[in-house]
């Protein structure tokens, strides 16, 4: 009831982990989320239609080391937003689990204080009828971290100032602020309970470039000052290059590549990653002709057999059509199970495993 420091929460919350906190703050194991989008049972019976299941997230596994940023990239329909919501508990997984600091997220009491989220749309993420002060104060009041009155006001002002706004803004309404400022308010709200882990769902995609730079710099400063861990969802690879320590690439709900940032950008393994990097319009080197990605993202309700990318992949063979590739380490080809060092990358691609892909790019 009284405000507990993060350290106290950490040490009393771990009932299953060892005496020291887990090296990886977040561990995701075999996470899947399937949505049933079928028509009602009766109409299916009458029309003879199949059940349509959307595998929004399909057997995804990764870890995030404490104090680092994992970026998840992908295009629309790849499942990254669903993944974000699974991690914070807005969806419950169909399969698999999320371990936070060694404790299973679903089993333990929802960790609302330690995990928070920042959303994409700065206009819809703040209640238009509440003052900014009330919005930022809500988590403090809900968890009893401050008493209503001067103490609360003081905390709220401090939070607003830590994100670059002024304390006097707490009596104003969201519509009086610009998109970038609203995202700062969202960040202030998310930081109110002093969380360890922030899931950021495309936090700057709706912002102008110069405003984006301000918000990204702010997020970086906050991470450094408070030791925050981020999961950063984005479709913009340039932004990812700036913010991430490690990067995961998703396609149709599956994790196709996962590597430290420097490695992903210098030696991308998966054909989809390579094509993605190649397709982005660049400021330099614009005269070079490039092969844009062929085709379009298939219907997620009806994904291709085997490797989901095979219809668009120049290196697809018969095995790719038949068998779904597992995520393997690119160094030795062994499975994900062993706890590899942070230097290795992981790819789900038969061509890589069979050595059919070169390192010179397309």
């Amino acid at each position, binding site marked *: 009831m009284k405000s507990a420091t993060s350290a106290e929460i950490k040490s009393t919350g771990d009932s299953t982990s060892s005496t020291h906190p887990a090296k990886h703050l977040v561990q995701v194991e075999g996470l899947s989320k399937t949505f049933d989008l079928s028509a009602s049972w009766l109409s299916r019976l009458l029309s003879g239609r199949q059940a349509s299941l959307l595998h929004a997230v399909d057997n995804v596994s990764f870890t995030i080391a404490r104090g680092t940023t994992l970026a998840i990239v992908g295009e629309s329909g790849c499942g990254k937003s669903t993944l974000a919501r699974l991690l914070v508990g807005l969806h419950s997984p169909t399969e698999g689990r999320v371990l936070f600091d060694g404790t299973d997220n679903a089993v333990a009491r929802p960790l609302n204080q330690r995990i928070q989220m920042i959303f994409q749309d700065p206009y819809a993420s703040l209640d238009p009828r509440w003052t900014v002060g009330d919005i930022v104060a809500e988590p403090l009041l809900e968890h009893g971290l401050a008493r209503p009155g001067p103490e609360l006001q003081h905390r709220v002002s401090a939070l607003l100032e830590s994100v670059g706004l002024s304390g006097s803004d707490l009596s104003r309404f969201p519509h009086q602020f610009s998109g970038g400022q609203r995202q700062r308010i969202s960040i202030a709200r998310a930081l109110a309970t002093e969380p360890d882990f922030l899931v950021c769902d495309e936090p700057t995609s709706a912002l102008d470039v110069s405003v984006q730079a301000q918000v990204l710099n702010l997020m970086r400063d906050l991470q450094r000052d408070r030791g925050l861990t981020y999961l950063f969802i984005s479709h913009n690879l340039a932004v990812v290059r700036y913010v991430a320590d490690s990067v995961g690439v998703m396609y149709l709900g599956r994790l196709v590549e996962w590597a430290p940032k420097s490695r992903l950008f210098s030696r991308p393994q998966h054909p989809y990653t390579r094509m993605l990097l190649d397709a982005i319009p660049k400021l330099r080197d614009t005269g070079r002709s490039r092969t*844009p990605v062929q085709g379009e993202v298939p219907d997620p309700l009806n994904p291709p057999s085997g490797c989901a990318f095979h219809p668009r992949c120049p290196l697809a063979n018969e095995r790719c059509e038949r068998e779904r590739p597992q995520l393997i380490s690119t160094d030795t080809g062994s499975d994900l199970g062993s706890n590899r060092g942070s230097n290795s990358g992981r790819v789900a691609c038969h061509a890589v495993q069979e050595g059919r892909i070169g390192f010179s790019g397309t």
Partner: protein
Amino acid sequence: MVMNLLEVNNLVVEFPTRRGLLRALDGVSLTIAPGEILGVVGESGAGKSLTGAAIIGLLDPPGRISSGEIHLAGERIDQYSADQMRGIRGRRIGAIFQDPLASLDPLYSIGHQLIETIRTHLPLTAGQARQRAIELLEETGIPAAAERINHYPHQFSGGMRQRVVIALALAAEPQLVIADEPTTALDVSIQAQVIGLLKRICHDRGAAVMLITHDMGVIAETCDRVAVMYAGRIVEIGPVQQVIHAPAHPYTVGLMASIPDLETDLERLAQIDGAMPRLDAIPPGCAFHPRCPRVFERCRFERPELLDAGTSRAACWLHAPEVAP
């Protein structure tokens, strides 16, 4: 010297509100040569979409053109009536907007919409128009065009829909195409395809393009020249390589520096402090001066015109002839 296809001179667009007259575009001037691709880049609220809307006669009332001139192939069009503009739209100026769902009527097949546009502007029979529509669809990369011409917009994916919109815009063979954020709503991999298509198809027809976007990468890949807008004014205009790699205006410098680089690791993103002023609070003199790292006395009270700065022009007193470089 070849005559410019589009000439905009000192365009001023105002919105009467109950708090007074809001000047959304304040003296915008630009030209587009036949077959050229001009990019118009800027952040939200800078006025780039408004510029396109004003040219094509689609300003939302109560907004109106208060002064300035727009010439299309020598003909002055800013004073045209709604009917006259309707004759120009489609036939001489084509439009592509950001949201394909808004451009395509969901109740009619795309073939119907294409043929209707073609026949409104060109004297073709129904059969000829249909044939032409199929050719257009094939040209924009729609597979099985002869079949899909009968499909409805919702049966196409986002990227395909935008291709149909491009086909629609070019159906009547316009001389100028205004594309307002044509790829912003599309996935990255599709963006590349659609931008490539737009560039190629306009080149093949000799149509000029005014490409409005906030994405500098798209501009770099597609345009010949680019105009940078800020607070309703053009602050820099010039050849694409020049503006991007050797920007002359401090705002452009700041803008380019704040774009994350795909190819290098950056320690910190440069940022421009503050925000673009709201239209009812534009400072006197140069609109950028409160945020400018190189501001001096003249900037605060005297508004700069577009001055020569190498091969481009910038509205900045740093480039006044008497100022030492």
